[in-house]
């Protein structure tokens, strides 16, 4: 009779382990993850006339605006690559990071109602955001391919690099970086709302430091003293690498790759720790 005393399924207590990442539990909730992704995609453009077309309109018009402002007005050189294609590649990738970051950084606050009622592994929500944005990104990359083919047929000097096979991994890294950073911010924002303001304009500023509308080489050439700001930004490196893979132009180094990957995993690791600590009691402060 007493031997069952030790047979507890789990314990709820105030003690927190540093890393409490329960893969088994997350796997058990995989259906929830899928349903969340489905919900995000299906409901986003409900009751709109253009529906999922909005997925395409956003990057197209942003790329168009960038082309007019930065390339036609400000005369930024994009080398052999047609400026519109250059911008479209940058914008699509940047948008993926941007939407991952802004959505995950709001995880606790926007889900407070549901988190306050039921328990499920909280990380399911940011994960679902990363995945549903991936679907959105997938649609956007199709439109990129369409323009790519059009420009290619018109004789533009673009070619896919062999490393394109690693493109999915690059995108995954971008998503993980957004996830890690988003989790850190979402955890802090539960208590200190100040960060909410920082994120909304910080992301905008970050874009200018991330080589989205200019090649990395251009900064080195024009502002050698300030170039480190961009060079040590893992995001700039990812955007540059993506352009190298897609358009065959860009400057990448082995050091840069290792540096970027290690920064991303450190952020992710730190994000998971702080997220785990927060998820237990955030409902008291949010």
């Amino acid at each position, binding site marked *: *009779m007493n031997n*069952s*005393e030790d*047979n*507890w*399924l*789990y*314990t*709820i*207590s*105030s003690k*927190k382990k540093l890393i409490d990442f329960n893969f088994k539990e997350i796997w*058990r*909730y995989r*259906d*929830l993850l*899928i*349903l*969340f992704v489905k*919900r995000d995609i*299906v*409901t986003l453009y*409900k*009751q709109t006339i253009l529906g999922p077309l909005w997925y395409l309109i956003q990057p197209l018009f942003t790329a168009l605006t960038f082309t007019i402002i930065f390339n036609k007005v400000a005369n930024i050189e994009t080398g052999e690559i047609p400026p519109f294609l250059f911008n479209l590649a940058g914008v699509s990738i940047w948008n993926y990071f941007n939407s991952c970051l802004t959505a995950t950084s709001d995880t606790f606050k926007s889900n407070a*109602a*549901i*988190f*306050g*009622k*039921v*328990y*499920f592994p909280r990380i399911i929500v940011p994960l679902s955001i990363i995945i549903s944005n991936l679907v959105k990104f997938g649609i956007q990359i199709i439109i990129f391919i369409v323009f790519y083919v059009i420009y290619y047929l018109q004789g533009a000097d673009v070619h896919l690099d062999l490393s394109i096979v690693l493109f999915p991994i690059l995108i995954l890294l971008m998503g993980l970086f957004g996830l890690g950073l988003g989790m850190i911010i979402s955890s802090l924002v539960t*208590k*200190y709302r100040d960060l909410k303001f920082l994120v909304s304009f910080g992301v905008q500023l970050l874009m200018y430091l991330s080589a989205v509308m200019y090649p990395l080489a251009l900064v080195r050439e024009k502002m050698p003293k300030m170039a480190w700001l961009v060079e040590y930004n893992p995001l700039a490196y990812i955007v540059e690498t993506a352009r190298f893979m897609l358009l065959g132009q860009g400057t990448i180094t082995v050091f840069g790759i290792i540096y970027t990957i290690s920064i991303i995993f450190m952020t992710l690791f730190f994000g998971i720790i702080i997220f785990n600590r927060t998820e*237990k*009691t955030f*409902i*008291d*402060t949010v």
Partner: protein
Amino acid sequence: MSNIILSVSNISKQYRLGLVGTGTLSHDLNRWWYAIRGKEDPFLKVGGVNDRSQKATSDYVWALKNIDFKVEQGEVLGIIGKNGAGKSTLLKILSRVTSPSTGEIKTKGKIASLLEVGTGFHPELTGLENIYLNGAILGMTKAEIKSKEDEIIEFSGCKMYIDTPVKRYSSGMRVRLAFAVAAFLEPDILVIDEVLAVGDAEFQKKAIGKMQDISKGDGRTVLFVSHNMVAVQNLCSRCIVLENGEIIKDGDTQEAINTYLSIGAITSNFKRVVDHEVKNVYIHDIQLLNDKNEMFNIIKSGDDFNLVIGVKSKKQVDNIIVELGVDGSNGERLVYLSNQLIERVIGLLPGENKIKLQIKKFPFLPGDYALAINLKETNGAKLDNVKNEFRFRVEGGDFFNTGKLNVKSRGKYLLEHDIFKI
């Protein structure tokens, strides 16, 4: 043989009072400083008792303090208490929404909570899609939901609307759908908080029936929080009563309900707080006296009931109206008494006045009652009133002089009567 499925030991939960502001940052830094040196959180040592009506004595409050209980497999445990007693906090900790400040909960089964139905419904999705989404949020897998889909739709009674977005549902329909999903969950321990407050009578009946099936039929454990004493009595085999974050009673449902109902009952001697002295006429105390003019606490049905109301007046009033009402525990007016009804003139002199009410053979059944007193002038001008402040308890007594000390009746009143053959 005891088969403990859930063991709660020494659970406490501390909350911060007031706003989160710059002070929070310094407390956080302080906490962190203690944490890295491996010391205990310094703020866990402070904290006042969770009594909502009192002024806070500290920045922190114990919403729950040293909660200890065990639940056996198949038991339906009721958790009752006044608003803010800590019921929902306890359920939140049990359902892992938030973690306790101290203590430990061990469980042998999966806990699913039904804290507020309709959580996680997305208004744009259809009823069916929401069944899947909500089921998954509550911890079911897709396959499990699929196998119960028809039953859930049937139970909800929303078959016609199942392909309509939930935003077009009436609130009752939403509750029905949500409860239906939760009712088909199969956790070992089900936590339910006030779900029956909404929904029509037919659905409430259905829901209570379903919960009885869950506990009795399937042998699952249920923790049930409610203010609906009828539902608690019907469902629960055992109850704990929380007050100010502490367990004040753990045991038989009926006893626990009685304890709960007596919280806040004041008897025999009532003194008014001082700030009423600004009025010209005010009731300053009320005393319950027996026939020998002794104060007493508990009235028995059939006792003589004497009430002395002390009234202070600053002026002379020749003729006032004294109205008295006795209210039941649900606030319903049971009787109305007045000096006008019996055409008795009462005047007040400056200074202390005493007004006595006499009732021969108190006719109420055991329970808790509140006394309302209203003083006014004959022209209708209000002088002073007492409402819901003076409560007293009635216990079973020998009303009919038959020697039985606890007269039982199905009605609300006892009435002296005679029945015989002619």
